[in-house]
């Protein structure tokens, strides 16, 4: 399967836009304009690759908090994201109730995620069960970090999908850390993909910094799921290039050298190289894209700064469905 130049450029664009937005969030945090940021920098290739293999708006996603690039690929706009960063009214994820990056976007079947890790994977299996009951040919993508696979919740979710051959793909973004804790302290297997053999589904480990390779792997896994042949576990290996969150100080547990070393394998740079090598785009074109991204983001930030906060009393609702404002 060969990707068209157009699709390749599109994928690059999503990675780029997410990256610049994410970088801006860090700036906004330093400026004291937002209270909290949790970043997906370094993980864009896995997310965009997976997203492009989905049927957008038809398939389902239960994402996690680093999935900015995934969400942008699905159609979350920079303006919408900035609203959530700033806790402003109109944040489509939670109406500014949740901390930023706990995504939800009903219009593309992206389900609301909470903070307790791995809970969303069980929901994915439930959605998969419903799809099987309804006999549609949708699939579900669920994502989480490698540390979160230590939760019993994850195990139970995968077990369900494997037993019932549900159309769910489990994407584990192995970025080498769970806050400060490395994979060796989370698991006794060499790779998260190894966990699949104990659960009875195929498991593969892929290079999570190669967006185009990721795309191919997911296309296959989704095809398997769509045709009734069950779930797949995909570990995408990568590196968390930022501290865990804006509250973290990663110098307490990893060296600067280690981080610098991994910046050389920055998935955005790698994708850029591929585009140039394959002559899918010129340096100039890519620079233009960069400019465009920054402009969009600046516009989004301005928009966000103008936007009002929710009114205090909006916190009162909706606890029960009866309180949901319709229309």
């Amino acid at each position, binding site marked *: 399967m060969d990707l068209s130049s157009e699709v390749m450029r599109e994928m690059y664009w999503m990675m780029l836009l997410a990256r610049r937005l994410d970088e801006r969030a860090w700036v906004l945090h330093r400026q004291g304009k937002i209270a909290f940021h949790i970043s997906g920098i370094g993980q864009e290739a896995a997310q965009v690759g997976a997203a492009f293999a989905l049927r957008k708006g038809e398939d*389902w996603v*239960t994402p996690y908090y680093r999935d900015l690039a995934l969400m942008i690929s699905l159609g979350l706009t920079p303006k919408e994201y900035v609203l959530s960063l700033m806790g402003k009214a109109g*944040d*489509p*994820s*939670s*109406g500014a*109730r*949740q901390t930023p990056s*706990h995504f*939800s976007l*009903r219009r593309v079947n992206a*389900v*609301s995620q*909470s903070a*307790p890790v791995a*809970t969303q994977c*069980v*929901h*994915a*299996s*439930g*959605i*998969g*069960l*419903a*799809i*099987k*009951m*309804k006999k549609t040919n949708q699939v579900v993508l669920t994502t989480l970090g490698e540390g979160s696979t230590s939760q*019993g*919740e994850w195990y*139970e*979710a995968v*077990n*369900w999908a494997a*037993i019932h051959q549900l159309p769910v793909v489990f994407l584990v973004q192995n970025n080498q850390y769970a806050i400060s804790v490395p994979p060796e302290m989370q698991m006794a297997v060499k790779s998260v993909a190894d966990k699949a053999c104990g659960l009875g589904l195929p498991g593969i480990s892929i290079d999570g910094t190669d967006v185009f390779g990721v795309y191919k792997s997911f296309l296959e896994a989704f095809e398997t799921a769509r045709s009734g042949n069950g779930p797949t576990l995909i570990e995408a290996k990568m590196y968390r290039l930022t501290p865990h969150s804006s509250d973290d100080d990663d110098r307490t547990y990893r060296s600067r050298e280690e981080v610098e070393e991994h910046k050389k394998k920055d998935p955005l740079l790698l994708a850029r190289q591929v585009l140039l090598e394959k002559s899918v785009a010129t340096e100039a074109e890519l620079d233009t894209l960069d400019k465009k991204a920054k402009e969009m983001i600046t516009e989004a930030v301005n928009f966000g700064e103008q936007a009002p906060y929710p009114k205090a009393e909006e916190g009162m*609702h*909706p*606890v*029960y*469905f*009866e*309180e*949901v*404002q319709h229309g």
Partner: protein
Amino acid sequence: MAEKALVEAIRDAMDDEMGRDEDVFIVGEDVGQRGGVFRATEGLFEKYGGMRVVDSPLAELSIVGVGIGAALYGMKPICEIQFADFIYPAFNQIVSEASKMLYRSDGAWPVPMVIRAPYGGGIGGGLYHSQSIEGFFTHVPGLKVVVPSTPYDAKGLLISAIRDPNPVMYLEPKKGYRLIRGEVPEGEYIVPIGPANITKSGEDLTIFAYGMMHFYALKAAENLEKEGISVEVVDLRTLVPVDKDTILKSVKKTGKALVVHEDNLTGGYGGEIAAIIAEHAFTYLDAPVRRLAGPDVPAVPFSHPMQEWFMVNEDKIMNAARELANY
């Protein structure tokens, strides 16, 4: 109208709703061929098949979590927890997920589901087959909590619960499954979630109870009538949202309140009812609000003498009511 046992009314409600609405399905341990360990789902597997009466793996959090996922997709799952005592592994999915999903997504993601759980002691079940759990779950905004005490209400409330667009915990007083019998209409009818029920009118004091304790309270009240003590009995039926109006109206009339449950006293639901009365009917009270509840030991012991020591029953209710009447 046929006389039926409580458990039959529950089965009828599920059968009827499954017949009417093919989005309704059951998931739980041994609900399929076995028909549930209390036979609540007997015959439904044969009638609706294994895709609508799903035997889950032995893992409660997945029962609820998969239910949530299916509900997000648009299904109406009925999740059976085999004994209420085994609901704790699912606590995170209930409290963090099902109950907070609507609020945290600003209304985008309702979770229409029912969690059924047989609860309560006095059946020789010992520490882990006798527990009451409403003390925990009435402290969870976003969740509704319902406890029927008659077959009529059991069917009508369960139909309401299945149709409710919110997560509803439906607690079944299992000692009453076959012990409590009563008239149950064929076919569709509803007992709304919310209103309490004054099951006996009286003048001297009000007993507030639910489930088995309501069954005993009513008997106690009838006996006390003969002694010349006129007791009003309120079957709370819905614990959340609580029917404050009915509660306060009754206390304002009788001036005395006895709150009864078999769950442990400290931190139990009775504290909430007592606090509501103490705050909002203060000037009407002729006596302290009295709570009669299970003692503060971990749960109901197995051996008969200790079990009887633990359980609230007709006699203990009569004694407490007499004392209060004489205050």
